[in-house]
């Protein structure tokens, strides 16, 4: 199999890589953003939230993937038996834990005065958060979010262990089918870089432009 053919095979794995990372990222926002605000504004942090963050910081993603897919999969075939579900579940929650850290830093960066200003015009605490804090928090988080998204793209390689035919798995399969240990890995490395590089770059610029516009 020549280089071009291998490249095509690898390229066909990219959509799956991207969809895993995008879905996980969105799950991360949905989970991480509320948790960040809860931890900042509701001081009684429930034990569950704390445990959640600790677990996803302290256990390798691969172990979690193997645990849920092979451990719980047989018992719950439609959810944990589905590789994509498990991938999105594990990476999404992991991302949520990371993103909650990012947002907490951004909340501190935006500052308390904004909250106070919001409440002074009559908004309730949670409405103030939604209308005043959230938009600004996103502005402050672009750098961190950019790197988190790049991280998700790279970590999507982990789902190879549960059998999804994304980029990493295809590269490894080519090692055997094409008996080639050079091309598949070099090409896949370059493909990953090609995907992660622009994102970090654009998010950086977008963040800088918005900050300038707001005079920060």
């Amino acid at each position, binding site marked *: 199999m020549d280089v071009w053919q291998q490249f095509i095979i690898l390229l066909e794995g990219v959509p799956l890589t991207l969809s895993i990372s995008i879905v996980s990222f969105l799950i991360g926002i949905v989970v991480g953003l509320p948790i960040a605000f809860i931890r900042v504004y509701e001081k009684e942090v429930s034990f569950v939230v704390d445990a959640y963050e*600790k*677990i996803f*910081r*302290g*256990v*390798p*993603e*691969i*172990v*979690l993937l*193997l*645990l849920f897919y*092979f*451990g*719980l999969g*047989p018992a719950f075939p439609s959810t944990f038996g589905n590789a994509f579900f498990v991938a999105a579940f594990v990476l999404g929650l992991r991302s949520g834990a990371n993103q909650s850290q990012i947002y907490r*830093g951004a909340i501190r960066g935006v500052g308390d005065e904004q909250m106070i200003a919001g409440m002074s015009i009559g908004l309730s605490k949670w409405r103030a958060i939604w209308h005043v804090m959230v938009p600004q928090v996103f502005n402050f988080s672009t*750098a*961190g979010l950019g790197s988190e998204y*790049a991280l998700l793209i*790279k*970590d999507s*390689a*982990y789902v*190879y*262990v549960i059998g999804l035919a994304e980029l*990493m798995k295809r*590269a*490894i399969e080519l*090692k055997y089918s094409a008996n080639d*240990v*050079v091309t598949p*890995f*070099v090409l*896949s*490395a*370059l493909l*990953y*870089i090609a995907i*992660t*590089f622009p994102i970090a770059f654009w998010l950086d610029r977008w963040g800088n432009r918005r900050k300038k516009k707001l005079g920060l």
Partner: protein
Amino acid sequence: MFEFLFNPMYQTWIVQGLILTVEITLFGVLLGLVLGTVLAIGDIYGSKPVKAAISVYAEFFRGSPLFVQLFLAVYTVPAILNVRVDHAVLAFLVFGLNSAGYQKGYMKGAMETIFDEQMQAGLSVGMSKIQTLRHVILPQAYRIVIPSWTNEFCSLTKSTATLSFVGFMDLVGAGRSILINNMQILPVWIVVGVIYFVWITAFSKVMDIVYEKKKIPGVELIMQ
């Protein structure tokens, strides 16, 4: 459910797996720290081509998954160079090189937080740039960088879980080996997960305490 834990053979696998994981992680972050410092200094003081090379290095190691880099190191590099190299050496190296790519960024950020004023102060008392770097800037940078370094440590540990897929007997590898003969999938992974969790959390806690003691009051790394 957890009877497998009492099997001495499995116990050996688990312990050895943990040892390998710990070894590779520590080697990786420490090599990464040293190399990262060198790269950071090169990035601050180097000529344009040097900076460009460092940039490419960092982009490569931070832009692709460690998983892929591991395959590259263990399979591709020996094939290209046509030499037989001990896989363990390659694996240890690639973790260090990868970590250096990230730590260069952290060290550079830490140094830049204090660089201008402390370099001036150092020069003003007659020290050379190198002396100032060695006695003033780096000592402070190493303290500022501790939280990021701890983060990098956690990250790297989790990445080592890929080792069994290139033929090493790490903790995950122990789990997979146990599962060949054992039908209890969930308990095995729970145990493996718990071991990682304890290791990572304990180490982080220790580093947090170290940071509290060693940190420079009023100076924090400005995350980029």
